């Protein structure tokens, strides 16, 4: 059964040239000089209940704008959003009871208050029955180890601790859908992994439909069955992670610090795509040549100091998708 249906969704922002100052600020109300930014451009997708989907794109691709329309905060310029039979921005009050939202860059908790007070306030706002509230709090406290955090004011928490509290806050009222906009942004590797595992459990055990935006492929690699890739407002890929990797993710990157300067670097089946002083970036196709073979060849001809292998970045994959012309 489909739970979210998005059809021909578009959002334009009109950006005015607004000079500073009081009266000129007011003048901005009537000014005619503006340009249009097409933040979301004809986006279509349907999600099923219980799906866990990654919404991926580089910075400025249109992820947050999409999430804000899905959560009813922004009104679409055109197109249709139907979530559980509701139009988010029209039925906001009714709709917000049934969804949970986490924005990685801001908190929905009250800055000056101890975390527990924020939870209590949310209990009233969402009119959560006492029993449900207690059960959920116990469940999330244990899963996210909140015990020593809840008595502290939000402003004293680290980013990772705050995120754990924000995740709890978004789920206390048993939402059917959880929207997360860059929930792992700024977190360290351990905290990121904790968030991912938590989301996976929430999705699996509580049948919560999850949409998660990120620019970090690692976030979605293990936990999302389906990926939507957005670039400059358009969906350029909609499918599984494996198919994506199969098609576009074969490139690996070897970053090498050379011991001294070489005027020319040439290795068979390997592209030198960047040079900065003695550091070089080598791209290779893992189906054509293995990483250990590349390393052997490099060390055979050049004196090296250090090397690292990196996974493909989202920008790289987006570039590949365009190159292959498969932007259906």
């Amino acid at each position, binding site marked *: 059964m489909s739970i979210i249906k998005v059809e021909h969704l578009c959002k334009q*922002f009109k950006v005015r040239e*607004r000079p*500073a*100052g*009081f009266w000129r*600020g*007011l003048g*901005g*109300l009537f000014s005619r000089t503006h340009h249009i930014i097409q933040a979301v451009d004809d986006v279509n997708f349907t999600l099923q209940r219980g799906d866990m989907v990654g919404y991926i794109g580089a910075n400025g691709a249109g992820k*947050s704008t999409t999430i*804000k329309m899905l*959560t*009813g*905060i*922004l*009104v679409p310029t055109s197109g249709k959003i139907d979530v559980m039979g509701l139009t988010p*921005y029209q039925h*906001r*009050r*009714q709709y*917000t*009871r049934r969804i949970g*939202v986490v*924005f*990685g*860059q*801001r*908190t*929905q908790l*009250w800055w*000056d*208050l101890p975390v527990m*007070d924020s939870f*209590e*306030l949310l209990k*009233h*706002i*969402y*009119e959560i029955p006492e029993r449900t509230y207690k059960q959920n709090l116990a469940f999330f406290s244990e899963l996210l180890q909140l015990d020593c955090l809840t008595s502290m004011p939000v402003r004293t928490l680290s980013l990772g601790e705050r995120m754990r509290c924000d995740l709890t806050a978004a789920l206390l009222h048993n939402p059917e859908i959880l929207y997360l*906009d*860059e929930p792992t*942004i700024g977190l360290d590797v351990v905290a990121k992994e904790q968030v991912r595992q938590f989301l996976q459990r929430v999705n699996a055990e509580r049948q919560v439909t999850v949409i998660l935006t990120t620019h970090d492929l690692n976030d979605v690699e293990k936990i999302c069955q389906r990926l939507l890739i957005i670039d400059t407002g358009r969906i350029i890929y909609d499918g599984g992670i494996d198919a994506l990797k199969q098609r576009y993710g074969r490139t690996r990157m070897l970053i090498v610090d050379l011991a001294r300067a070489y005027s020319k670097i040439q290795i068979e089946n390997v592209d030198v795509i960047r040079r900065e002083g003695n550091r070089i970036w080598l791209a290779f196709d893992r189906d054509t040549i293995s990483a250990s073979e590349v390393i052997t060849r490099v060390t055979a001809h050049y004196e090296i100091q250090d090397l690292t292998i990196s996974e493909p970045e989202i920008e790289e994959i987006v570039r590949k998708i365009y190159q292959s012309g498969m932007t259906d």
Partner: protein
Amino acid sequence: MRKYLAFAANAFQRTLTYRFELWVELFINVLFMLIYVYLWKALYNGRSAVEGYDLTRILTYIVVSQTLLSFHFTLRIARVIEEKVRTGEVVTDLMKPIDFQLMLLATGVGTTFHTVLFNMLPKLLLFYVGLRLLLPGSILTVGVFIISVMLGFVILFNIEFLIGILAFWVVEIRGIYFAVIWGISWFFSGYFLPLEHYPDLLAKMAEYLPFQAIIYSPTAIYVGRITGSAMVGVLLIQLFWAVVLMGLGRFAYLAALRKLAIQGG
């Protein structure tokens, strides 16, 4: 309803953390009130009554109106909205099943209740004892006065709310805020001088504006300038303004939502 009570209680609690500031504010308020009191004593030197106010009555008027003026210092809802729009925090409010206007009203009630307890009532008591001020004529007057104060508060809240909503359209509302709240509103609210003392034209203007309903109406009831059935008329006018302004605020807010554009995550 429960949720808005929770908001009010919450705001009240948060205000408790700014204790020191509140003592400073109380101190400065009292200083200003003393200045006004001595000013009026000097002006009345030898005179018996002006425009129906004898010295005790005018002093009572000044003390009560100065006390009610504290609403202006405490509420600051326009600035709260501006801040929410500027930082994008408004997004987190919109995600919740609450009414933005009522939520802010509840928050305003919470912070103001704190001011009533720890600033306004002590001031009133202090000056009442120190100057032997008038007491309201009857228990009924006290009741009407309290209702009138609450309606005045709601009116001020809604004016602030309307100004705050402008922040959805213009970058900078501080100019408008100071002009309306600390200029026009102060002038026409009669906090400094009973409206009877105003030149006819200004007094007439004040009568048709909502600002007099914030301070002048309740104060005039307190000091017995408005009595009997006239009190009902005043309450009705206040109620009219409260409802109209609340409706306007809601309308402006809904229009703002359609235009809302918050940048960033």
